[in-house]
């Protein structure tokens, strides 16, 4: 009776897997805090560092002191153990009902997180995926060859798998926590093709997927990786998913 207080109980846990991101980590955290504070959503950042030798964890500890241990949570692991298990590890400590996963290398801009959240709310999507291939989405710092491989691989994937999402290998996404748990359990691939399997399995399990165009700025510090072995991994995963889903 009286004042209606708008209380949204939603909380967003942002998972940041890191390996040697000592230069990028403070910047990405600063950007996340800036945009999440403005948006008014409840959130936390969980840093899952795989034993980086470059001092990433020291940087994380400094950031904890600045922003508080309730906002920045550090859950390191001893060594590099892969993305899927990093998410499982991070989720165990997540207190939010939504999980946002993104790269810590500044290629994913935290300003899109609020758009992801709005998109999710608009139709109660199970998954919201960032896409470089639609609308205002795009990439920066890619040459012709890189674009050709990316577009070619995407065309082939759309043709063979009809996944119902335009960007399969992107890793900037928002999930309902229980949905992410189920998806991770149903995925077998490792490495970056894991992202592709997640979205294909989402379609297979009849989850709804919303999309938000994002700009992808290729690694500012550090090296970007796309070699023969990545292409081989991709082809293998594509054929595997083609034959099994």
């Amino acid at each position, binding site marked *: 009776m009286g004042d209606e207080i708008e209380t949204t109980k939603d909380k967003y846990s942002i998972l940041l897997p890191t390996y040697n991101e000592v230069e990028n980590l403070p910047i990405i955290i600063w*950007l996340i805090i800036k945009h999440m504070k403005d948006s008014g959503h409840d959130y936390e950042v969980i840093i899952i560092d795989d034993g980086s030798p470059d001092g990433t964890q020291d940087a994380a500890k400094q950031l904890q002191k600045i922003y508080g241990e309730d906002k920045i949570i550090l859950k390191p692991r001893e060594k590099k153990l892969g993305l899927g298990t990093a998410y499982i590890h991070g989720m165990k400590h997540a207190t939010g009902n939504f999980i946002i996963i993104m790269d810590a290398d500044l290629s994913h801009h935290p300003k899109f997180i609020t758009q992801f959240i709005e998109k999710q709310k608009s139709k109660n999507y199970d998954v919201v995926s960032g896409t470089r291939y639609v609308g205002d989405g795009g990439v920066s710092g890619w040459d012709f060859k890189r*674009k050709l491989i990316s577009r070619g691989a995407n065309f082939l994937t759309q043709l063979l798998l009809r996944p119902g999402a335009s960007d399969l290998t992107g890793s900037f996404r928002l999930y309902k926590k229980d949905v992410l748990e189920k998806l991770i359990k149903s995925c077998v691939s490792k490495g970056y093709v894991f992202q592709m399997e997640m979205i294909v399995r989402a379609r297979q399990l009849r989850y709804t997927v919303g999309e938000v165009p994002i700009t992808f700025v290729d690694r500012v510090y550090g090296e970007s990786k796309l070699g023969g072995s990545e292409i081989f991994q991709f082809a293998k995963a594509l054929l595997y998913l*083609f034959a099994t889903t």
Partner: protein
Amino acid sequence: MTKLFEWLAVFGVLGAVWLSLVNNKIECALIKQHPTLILFSPVIFLALFGFYAATVVLYRVFTFNNCEKAAAELQEEIQEARTELTKLGFQFKDNHD
């Protein structure tokens, strides 16, 4: 049904139709007039599809947004973050500026 079986099913049906046309199992004047066209139709379709695929992929490569503005903004934000974090007492491991 997996995607593989969907593809096999569709190609199976198309293949069966093609085979019956080539072997004159279906009577049709048009087919009798163009026997070579029917015989090579799979190759023709494949070539046309290849042309379509190449056109679409190249079109998308050339219209792929170059987010130069986003990249420039990020550079500015990095500087801003470094300045503010330093004020907050964060010690950067190296000096990039």
